[in-house]
């Protein structure tokens, strides 16, 4: 999986910069490379926010087309992927608003959920809890579990923990402050852990 790696040395360019320059010079194949590199990640972000497969597909297409059209506006003082995520998040939120007939949906809303940041279920997990479920069943559990979190928590978890973006890049991509990203990440991690404990707890007696 492509993750945004810090570039060693101040004179070294991020590889995306060269691709963007080629696209600006009219090389559409270079844009295809950027698409192939990031389409999976963008699809997952869109799916996390919209929770609708068709909408997520449309978001991927709209986000890449919009980024292509606006490429002249990309300054290069942020990373291409961070800039792309910002476009994808905005497109996803627009889709979500349309589904919810105009109701405001925002990533920067600081949702106070019942599950705060204090763990309540302290049961330990079975040694290899995934082994108790088929791949299909496990994926269903993981999707259902993360779906229960607010959209802003889901996206922060995806960007930081799954895609490996830094806290600063996540904050920039989502237009959030660094403390807001940290707070959402902690609560997302603890809430997911708590919810997964229902499935993965060490069972007394015979394991399934």
């Amino acid at each position, binding site marked *: 999986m492509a993750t945004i790696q810090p570039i060693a040395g101040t004179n070294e360019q991020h590889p995306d910069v060269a691709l963007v320059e080629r696209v600006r010079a*009219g090389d*559409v194949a270079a*844009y*295809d490379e950027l*698409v*192939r590199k990031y*389409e*999976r990640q963008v*699809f*997952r972000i869109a*799916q*996390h926010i919209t929770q609708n*497969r068709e909408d*997520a*597909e449309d978001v*991927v*297409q709209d986000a*890449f*087309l919009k980024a*292509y*059209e606006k490429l002249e506006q990309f300054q290069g003082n942020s990373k291409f992927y961070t800039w792309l995520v910002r476009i994808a998040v905005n497109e996803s939120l627009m889709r979500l608003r349309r589904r919810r007939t105009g109701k405001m949906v925002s990533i920067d809303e600081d949702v106070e959920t019942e599950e705060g*940041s*204090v*763990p309540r279920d*302290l*049961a*330990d*997990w079975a040694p290899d*809890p*995934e082994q108790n479920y088929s791949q299909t069943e*496990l*994926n269903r559990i*993981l*999707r259902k579990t*993360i779906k229960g979190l607010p959209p802003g928590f889901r996206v922060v*978890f995806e960007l930081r*923990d*799954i895609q490996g973006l830094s806290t600063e890049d996540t904050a920039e991509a989502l237009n959030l402050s660094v403390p807001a990203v*940290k707070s959402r*990440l*902690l609560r997302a*991690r*603890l809430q*997911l*852990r708590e919810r*997964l*404990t229902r499935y*993965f707890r060490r069972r007394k007696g015979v394991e399934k």
Partner: protein
Amino acid sequence: MTCSEFLALLDDMIDSTELRTDLKEHLRCCEHCEVTLNTTRKTIEIYRSHQIYDMPAGLRERLHAAIMARCKKGC
């Protein structure tokens, strides 16, 4: 160190392999915090190792076609 103080530092601990002495000390005598730290790490690991949202078949081709169509209108 209290459990709340420990949990406030949880994020810093998730990825670090070497814990500060006071954190190690707390873990040694607090089973609850040890379980929380280990299962939170495991939560992240499980989500990292499973693709819960697969790219739909044909999306790449549709995307490519849409970009090429847009390009023909003027790159």
